[in-house]
């Protein structure tokens, strides 16, 4: 009787484990099936590197290079802002802050993570956008820079909490070992703690970037949504995600436009997959 119970539970867990892989595979297959149709009319090269995205003109021009560059630019800007601040914040919380400060900061960061992205986008629209406009003397503040700043806020909680965990889980004895050799607190942090936690910190950064590149609502609201190749971070851009969200409702099912949006989904999928694989490679290299 006991053996049967064991057997059933074992198999149940196995099924649950396999389910996640199954769902990912199904999602990818579905994306692939729908998205591949677009390549009957456009070549993959033209699709990826075409410079103009006019899906409803006649004939439709389906080049997503402006969208890819838009996504990358916004993500890159957000990473430049959020990684140094996020990691520094994690170091402060894990190593420097006194106990009560630690609690306050941690709950503050959890709250930041709890704000829905549409609310953040809305706040960004009325605060960051005019601010960027005035500071940089732009005709409009709806730009990649505004998007980057906004997304940096969204990536920060992920980066801080995971990096802080990584630092916290470095054995205390490492730090004591360094201090016992006469290291100062900062030397112990940057020569022992940070290298020891580097895999966790990299994972934190990658997950933060993953969150940024997949974010849709806030960027759609404040990056200006113009599908042209950006020449500076102060120009409006449109990201891959925002394109899907904005156009899916209008695209005629089964049309070229519809399939192209699915193909964008594939591109997004591949990008986030690549980010995760890179993070994994870093993690394993360290060990």
């Amino acid at each position, binding site marked *: 009787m006991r053996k049967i119970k064991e057997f059933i539970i074992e198999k149940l867990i196995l099924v649950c484990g396999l389910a996640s892989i199954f769902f990912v595979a199904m999602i990818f297959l579905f994306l692939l099936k729908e998205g591949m149709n677009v390549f009957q009319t456009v070549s993959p090269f033209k699709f990826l590197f075409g410079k103009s995205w006019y899906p409803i003109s006649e004939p439709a021009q389906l080049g997503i290079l402006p969208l890819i560059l838009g996504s990358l630019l916004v993500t890159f800007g957000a990473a430049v802002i959020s990684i140094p601040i996020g990691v520094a914040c994690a170091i402060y919380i894990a190593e420097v802050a006194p106990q009560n400060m630690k609690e306050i900061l941690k709950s503050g960061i959890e709250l930041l993570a709890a704000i829905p992205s549409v609310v953040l986008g809305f706040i960004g629209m009325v605060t960051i956008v005019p601010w960027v406009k005035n500071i940089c003397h732009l005709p409009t503040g709806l730009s990649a820079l505004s998007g980057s700043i906004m997304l940096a806020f969204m990536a920060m909680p992920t980066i801080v909490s995971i990096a802080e965990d990584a630092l916290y889980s470095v054995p205390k*004895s490492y730090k004591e*070992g360094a201090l*016992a*050799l*006469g*290291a100062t607190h900062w030397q112990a942090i940057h020569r022992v703690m940070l*290298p*020891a936690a580097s895999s966790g910190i990299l994972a934190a950064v990658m997950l933060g970037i993953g969150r940024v590149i997949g974010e849709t609502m806030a960027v759609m609201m404040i990056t200006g949504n113009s599908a042209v190749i950006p020449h500076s971070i102060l120009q409006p851009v449109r990201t891959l995600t925002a394109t899907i969200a904005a156009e899916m409702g209008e695209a005629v099912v089964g049309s070229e436009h519809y399939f192209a949006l699915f193909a964008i989904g594939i591109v997004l999928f591949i990008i986030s997959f690549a980010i995760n694989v890179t993070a994994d490679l870093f993690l394993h290299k360290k060990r």
Partner: protein
Amino acid sequence: MIKFNIKNLNIWFGHIHALKDVTIDITANEILSVIGPSNSGKTSFLRMLNRLNELSENFKMGGEVKFAGRNINDMDAELVRKKIGMVFALPLPLPLSIFDNVAYGVKMYGLKNRKKQQEIVEKALKQAYLWDEVKDRLQTSAFKLSGGQQQRLCIARTLAVEPDVILFDEPCSGLDPISTAKVEEAMLKLKANYTIVLVTNNVKQAARVGGKTAFFLSGELIEVDKTDKMFTAPQDKRTDDYISGKFG
């Protein structure tokens, strides 16, 4: 010559009174073994000497610890810890090559000259009786070494920064008898140039390395004397009971 003057040392971690009114002198170029059961305060005593206790929250102290005539609390904590090296219970190599592990401290103090670094590493590894075993593979990862070798590597790392005093916190608790013998051999040779304080759970080890022995119980220093005398004619009955294995 006296290295440490410790007078009426009391320490607390929160409400726990970890050391009670300890007064002891530690002589230079001698091994002082500190024995006692768990929670007797022997490790707290050791960590007092290089000011590691103050890293714990709620730590409070009374009394004074003088190192070479100066109160350690008036010195820079980094300087204290540079002069007073420490070897921990578990070997703690850093995720670096053998060479970089040993050169770690001096590099941190800003020594860039590669040749000088090599000299220091060789000297330290020889003093720790590890040189012959690793001289052909200094660039391999320190994690490839056995437990005993790792512990001697940690001793070499401590020696490389040229301290006056070396504190050993149960350095052989995780080692096999042969590795233990090697570490003890290194300690006996080292006492010619260094002052050594050894905290050990192993009463026999204290007897083997000689010098003086101090017996702690529940935060009190019960007795300190020449090891020979302590092990043949202890003054206090509790010492006798602990040494002969009646408790502990």
